[in-house]
């Protein structure tokens, strides 16, 4: 990996976006305006980190991007992929929710098996793929455990394994590593980066950690306080591949400072009129 000097262009505009979010607003039935005219193009091959203050609508935005739930106004398009009758993309999307969202009556294996089962993938192939992703998240010994027997971080890793098992084109992750220790978090950071690199993945990654965002992303999108909208959009020009040593470079430190400043600005910026 170290000798691999290929750089991935960031903010690429030659190709059509995978997801185009145009002027999307979302008002919940209780009157809360969670998103206000949010616009975001997710380009193929990008690694976008979504940053913003708590409650600004990041989770809502991620669900909208996945085609879950309808926007109150605006449009979501999937220019690159076909859509089914309901206007939902047929492309493989992996979603890691903010909560583990596991079925308590299924074992770890059963939970990870679910997406493959829904896609009617054969037993033996499924088995191989499940054991492989469980190994990736370090849970191969817990395949037969039930969710209640796992710790919070382990449940989250099951959820990540479930999102990866279909080998998605677009991976949406909502604060996936929040509940993990620093070492596991760094390992999974590197795993996600490796998958992104190897499988030509596109990732939208919600996080509260400026350092994580700076380490992972090819582009950082900062959202302002509720109602959520994009307040700054920073393409990162830091070199690839990023490995552990990147964390000690001056470039990384400068990057973190830039992102941190943008976040400060977003939190203190006057919120747009609804």
């Amino acid at each position: 990996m170290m000798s691999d000097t290929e750089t991935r262009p960031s903010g690429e505009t030659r190709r059509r976006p995978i997801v185009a979010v145009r002027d999307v607003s979302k008002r919940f039935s209780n009157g809360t305006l969670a998103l206000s005219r949010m616009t975001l193009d997710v380009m193929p091959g990008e690694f976008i980190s979504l940053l913003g203050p708590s409650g600004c609508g990041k989770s809502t935005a991620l669900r909208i991007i996945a085609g879950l739930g309808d926007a109150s106004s605006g449009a979501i398009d999937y220019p690159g992929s076909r859509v089914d009758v309901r206007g939902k993309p047929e492309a493989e999307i992996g979603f890691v929710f903010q909560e583990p969202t596991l079925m308590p009556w299924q074992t770890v294996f059963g939970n990870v098996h679910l997406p493959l089962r829904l896609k009617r993938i054969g037993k033996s192939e499924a088995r191989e793929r499940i054991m492989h992703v469980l190994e990736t998240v370090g849970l191969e010994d817990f395949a037969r455990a039930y969710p209640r027997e796992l710790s919070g971080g382990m449940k989250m890793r099951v959820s990540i394994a479930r999102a990866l098992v279909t080998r998605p084109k677009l991976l949406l992750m909502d604060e996936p590593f929040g509940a993990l220790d620093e070492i596991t978090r760094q390992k999974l950071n590197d795993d996600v980066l490796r998958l992104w690199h190897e499988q030509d993945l596109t990732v939208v990654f919600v996080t509260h950690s400026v350092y994580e965002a700076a380490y992972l992303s090819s582009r950082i999108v900062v959202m302002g306080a509720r109602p959520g909208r994009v307040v700054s959009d920073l393409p990162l020009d830091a070199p690839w591949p990023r490995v552990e040593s990147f964390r000690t470079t001056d470039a990384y430190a400068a990057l973190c400072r830039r992102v941190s400043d943008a976040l400060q600005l977003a939190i203190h910026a006057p919120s747009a009129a609804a």
Partner: protein
Amino acid sequence: MSDYPALSGVAAPAEDDAGKFAAGQAGERDAAAAQAARIERSLKLTIPVAMLALTILVWQLYVEINKVPPYILPSPVAVATALWTDWGTLYPALLVTLKITVSALVLALIGGVGLAILLVQSRWIELALYPYAVILQVTPIVAIAPLILVYASSTQVALLICAFLVAFFPILSNMVQGLKSVDHNLLNLFELYGASRFQTLWLLKLPAAQPYFMAGLKIGGGLALIAAVVAEFAAGSAGAGSGLAFRLLEAQYRLNIPRLFAALLLLSATGVAIFGLTSLISWLALRRWHESAIKREN
């Protein structure tokens, strides 16, 4: 509390003995805990049994000492004798009542679960059908039993319908509640992977509704027996196919109170058996994952 030796008036051990003392204590404590668990387990069985034996003994003594006539309160021995001598009439009656109760419960399970699945398919179906289920439920069964007796082809069928109507609703309403109580993010997940309606029902909604179904089963099982008895009281017909409730009434008319108690005993035993069986089914289904069937461990 023997766990805290310092509190029981014994002086704390010297500084350098403390470690050894604590280790010895831990070993003893493990053994003591195992011992306590064993005692608790045996007590769980012996306490209810002893209590029951005591009640029967007090009852027998009360009847004997006060010379209570058997047509007021028969002694346990008299009841047991009646059970033995009248077994020829009571046993077929028990079978009849059991048959009605079990078939009513099975029908109520099929109907309740089936209708619940139908109701959650669309709000319109629910709006159209749910009121009827509620009306049937809130109308006292004794009040409609005479009507059902008129319409039904035989008394047996009428009793079956009554027991069914009573057991049906708790199963239906629990099941509807269960099918609707699915984690919304899990629903999102199924939508994301393009799951069909059937897949969502089979892999998500039905398993998620299991604890609710089990609650409905336990309530419905008990109610089916009660309704079978109440309906038979209302029907009050004699004949070869009469159940325990009729035998009970008959014994009362003839002032054969020991036999009445024997019939009552059989009814109680049936109720207990239904409760035990439904509880066992529920435990078997939920023991791997649901909080209700799992001991808390911190």
